Structure formats: structure tokens, C-alpha cells
């Protein structure tokens, strides 16, 4: 398979992630969709690194993994705190702030 196919796959995964964030209601699933978007970017970086013939893209992928892990820590902490006080992880239910 040529590297171009991986770039297209990355774009498809990114789109799936975006749609997931927009339509899903459960905060955990929304969060997983965001992780999917980050990993789609990683795949694109690695595929482009292959096409460009340098290592930068692969190195960047490692950095992104670390950042994504840090994001999981913060995100899950917030979601767990909300779940404990509301007994629900739906992102539609916290609706005290509006207009």
C-alpha cells in the first residue's frame, strides 16, 4: 500500500472522530472520539514522514502520545468529578449555563 492511502485513512478516522464528538452524548465516548482525532493526526504524521523521507513526523507522533496521555488524566478527572456530583456522564445534562 502506498503512503497516500494511509493519509486518506487518517482523514477518514479524523472525520469519524469529529462526527463522534458532535453526535454522541456520553462524555466518555465524546472523549474517545477526541482521542481518535489525535491518533488520526498521528497516523497522518507518520505517513507524511514516510513520504517526505525524514524522521520528524515519527518523532512528533511520540510527543503527541505523551500529550494525549496528559489530556486523558485531566479529562477523566473532570468527567469523574461531574459523574460523582450528578450521577451521570451525559454531556447534555449539565445545562445550568445557557444563553
Amino acid at each position, binding site marked *: 500500500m502506498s503512503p497516500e492511502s494511509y*493519509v486518506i485513512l*487518517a482523514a477518514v478516522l*479524523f472525520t469519524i*472522530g469529529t462526527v463522534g*464528538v458532535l453526535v454522541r452524548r456520553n*462524555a466518555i465516548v*465524546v*472523549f474517545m472520539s*477526541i482521542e481518535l*482525532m*489525535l491518533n*488520526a*493526526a498521528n497516523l*497522518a*504524521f507518520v*505517513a*507524511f*514522514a514516510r*513520504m*517526505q*523521507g*525524514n*524522521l*520528524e*513526523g515519527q518523532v*512528533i507522533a511520540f*510527543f*503527541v502520545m505523551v*500529550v494525549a496521555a*496528559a*489530556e486523558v488524566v*485531566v*479529562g477523566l*478527572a*473532570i*468527567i469523574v*468529578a*461531574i459523574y*460523582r*456530583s*450528578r450521577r451521570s456522564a451525559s*454531556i447534555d445534562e*449539565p*445545562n*445550568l*449555563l*445557557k*444563553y
Partner: protein
Amino acid sequence: MNPDVMVAPEIDYLALLPMIIVGVAAVLGVIVETFVGRGARRPVQLVLVFGSLAGAFAALVWQSSTRSLEVEGALAIDGPGILLMGLVLIVAFVGAMLMAERQLDPAGDSFAPRASALPGSVDERELTKRGYLQTEVWPLFLFAVVGMMLFITSTNLLVMFVALEVMSLPLYLLAGMARRRRLLSQEAALKYFILGAFSSAFFLFGAALVYGFSGSVEFSAIADALAAKPGETALIVIGLAMLVVGLLFKVGAVPFHQWVPDVYQGSPAPVTAFMAAAVKVAAFGAMLRLLYVAFGGLRWDWEPLLWVVAGLTMIVGSIVAIAQTDIKRMIAYSSIAQAGFILIGVSTATAEGLWASIFYLVAYSFTTLGIFAVISMVRDSGGEATRIEQWSGLGRTNPVIATCFAIFMLALAGIPLTSGFIAKFVVFEAALAVDAVALVIVGVIASVIAAFFYVRIIVVMFFRDPIEGAPRVAVPSGFTTLALSISVAVTVILGILPQPVLDLIERAGVFLR
């Protein structure tokens, strides 16, 4: 890159000293949390925070003649970078004073005694009764400041992405830690986090596309690749658009502004003050550098886009603010409108536009700090009294505080003799220099619309009788008093004598390429 020869990068630690000081202090803050007894933590943390911010500022002034690319070209310590870092440090210093305040709320400071305790639970009441104060906010705060300084100086999309996250992650947590109205605060944190992570994913994918085009994420290499391959622009234009979406989200520009009112309203007022002022400075600094240094060659593609976004941001922000009944929400929409005015400066793609944007950021950030200082002082039994009708008659019961707030309102409206007037003036001047007449007209119309709700607050404060159960203005300690005095002083002095600051900004020159 030859894998056989690994050369250690040369790093000029002196030029990076300001960032290193704040970063080390942040790490020390985490260690203090672990090893210092509960009673001594707060004083130790405060010494660390104020000491490191002051030390970093001193180091910045000492190194202020540096104009070089550092760490193999990953960071640019140049004129605008140093200026904006200095602004972030001052804003952080004043913001830290607001966060350190603990006389306004009878129970302690503005943060929950323990963020993990259930709101309203027995646990939490017990902790409050014992007078526990959260000190973990201080390392988080310092990490956010480091992220901002990196964000402003990064000349590399990878460093910029990491800095974006280092800046944002602590802020998501800080937004959810309010002592009062925790449910609102947690909701703000969730919304800020989900939408923030969503936008940074866009930023990252944009970076990947740009890398695919240019084979490097360094700004200079991107600019060279643009010059070398003028025809093939599909990949890079989409990449640029996604990068800009990520940054426009951070500054709260329409149509990426939905999180702003919720987060500003739900977060504790001191955090909102710091976030509203410093994040705007950092994100606009990064946006200016990205567009001017890396994508100067694509100017004809991004200028029209920014014109539309700037116009929409000013108009939508101003119109929706009119309908608000909560003062924090109104200020949030007004800050959206203000972002539109700064975007005018950004969209000019000239040195004058860069300087005008920086001046606007200086004026806006101090006004915002002052506004939230006042909001944190006007309280009723449930915490901050933020419904606008509760503010009726404040000018009669507390003329000093109401006058301060009126000055800030006039500054945001852009009335002469305040910093806001000069800021709008220089931005419009820069736009007229590149013949963006339509944008200036939209800006003036938006200012007129906006003046309505700013003046309405003044009318409510000075010409209405106080309502039943009106909020009282809590007597603050020296922290808030000093922060408020600095904000008022800067707002007025920049309005009367702006020239020294304008000269300073012009002397800083343009971004290093």
C-alpha cells in the same frame, strides 16, 4: 538528518531564563504540595509564585536585548516575543493577587477546599469548617504561565502544540474548582475541556497537513516551502485553515465562541480574570507569529478569512451582549467582541497591525483584570452577585468601587481618555493603512452597539435605587486592592499618556524569521 551523527543542540540558557524560572517554580510547587505541612503550604506557595513571576520578569528585562532563535530554531526570543512574555508575566502577577485573596469569602479563598469532595457533602462542610485552603491551584497556575510563554515564543508547530496543551490543561482544572456554585463550575470545566480538546485536535491535524506539504514543522521551513512550491496549495490551505481554527477557538472568535460565556460565568472570578486576559495575550501572540512568520506567503488566502471572522466576531459579540442579564456573561460576550477588534489588527499583516494588536492586548488585559476584581468583590450570601439588577444603586452605596467599574466600562466602550479609545484608534489606523475601510466601518458600528450595554451598566449602578437584599461589597485585603488599583491606573494612564508604551512596542520591532 543523519542518524550517525547526533549533535547535542546548543541551548543558550540565559535567554530562556524567564521560562526556566517559572517552570522550575511550578515543579517545586508540586514538591511543596507533597512534603510541606498543610499549615505552611499556602505561604510557601505564595512566595514561590510571586517570587518566580517577579524573578522571571527581572530576567526578561535583563535579557531584553536578545534577538535570536534558540534551541535549534524552536523558540524565538525576539522583540514582540519578549514584550508579550512580559505582558503575560505582569498579568499573571496581578491575576495571582486576585487568586490569593481570602478575605472576600467568609469561608476562605475562591477555591473549593478539596476539588474531589462532592459539592455540598458532609466531607466538604467539614473541610470548610476546618478552614482548609486548596493550594494545588498554585502549581497549576504556574504551569499555565509556562505554557503561555512557550506558546508566544514557539517557532515550530510541534512546540506550539505542546505549549498549547501545557497552557490549557491546568486552566481546564482551575475552571472547575470554584468554592461556590460548584455544579456550575464543574459544568464550565467539562465544556471548556471537551471543546478545548476538540479544537486542539483540529490544530494537530492541521499541523500534520502542513508537515505533509513542507516536510518540516518549523516556521522558517514552511515559509521556504511556500516560496518554493507556489502552485500546489490545496494541502497547505486546508492545513492552515485547521491551525487557525484551533487558535481562533482559544481567543474565542465567532463562530468558535460558544464556550466563552459558559466558562467565564462558571469559573471562579479570579481564574476567569487570569484566563480572559492571559490566554488572549498568549493565543494572539501565537496566532500573529504563525500567520506572519510561517504563512506570510499565503497572506492573500488568510486575510479575507480573518476579515470575515473579525467582522462577525465584533457584531455577534456586541449584539448578543445586549440581551445578557448576568454580568459575567455580558463581559464574556464583550470579550468576544474585543477579540474581533484585535483580529482587525492581526488581519492587516503589517508591522503597524502587529503593534496595534499588541497595544490592544495590553489595554484589554488590564481592563479585564480590573473588571473581574470588582466582580469578585460584589457578593451576596451565595457568593458573587452577578445578576445585573443586583448591581442597581451600587454607585450610591459604594461610589469608589462603582467608579472603578464605570472606568472599565468606558474603556471597553472605547471612550476617550481611557486605554480602550487609544487601542481602538491604533487598530483602526492600521486597518485604514491597508485600505480595509469596510472592516473599520463594521468596527465602528459594533462599537456603537457595544456602547449601549456598557453605558447601561453605568446607568444601573448610578441612577437606580438599590433593590431588596442588595449585595454588599466585601472589604478586600491588600491583594485585591492592589490588583484593582493597578488595573485602574493602567487603564487611565494608557488613555492619557499612551506614547511611552506605543514607543516601547514599536522599538520591539517585528518577529524574527
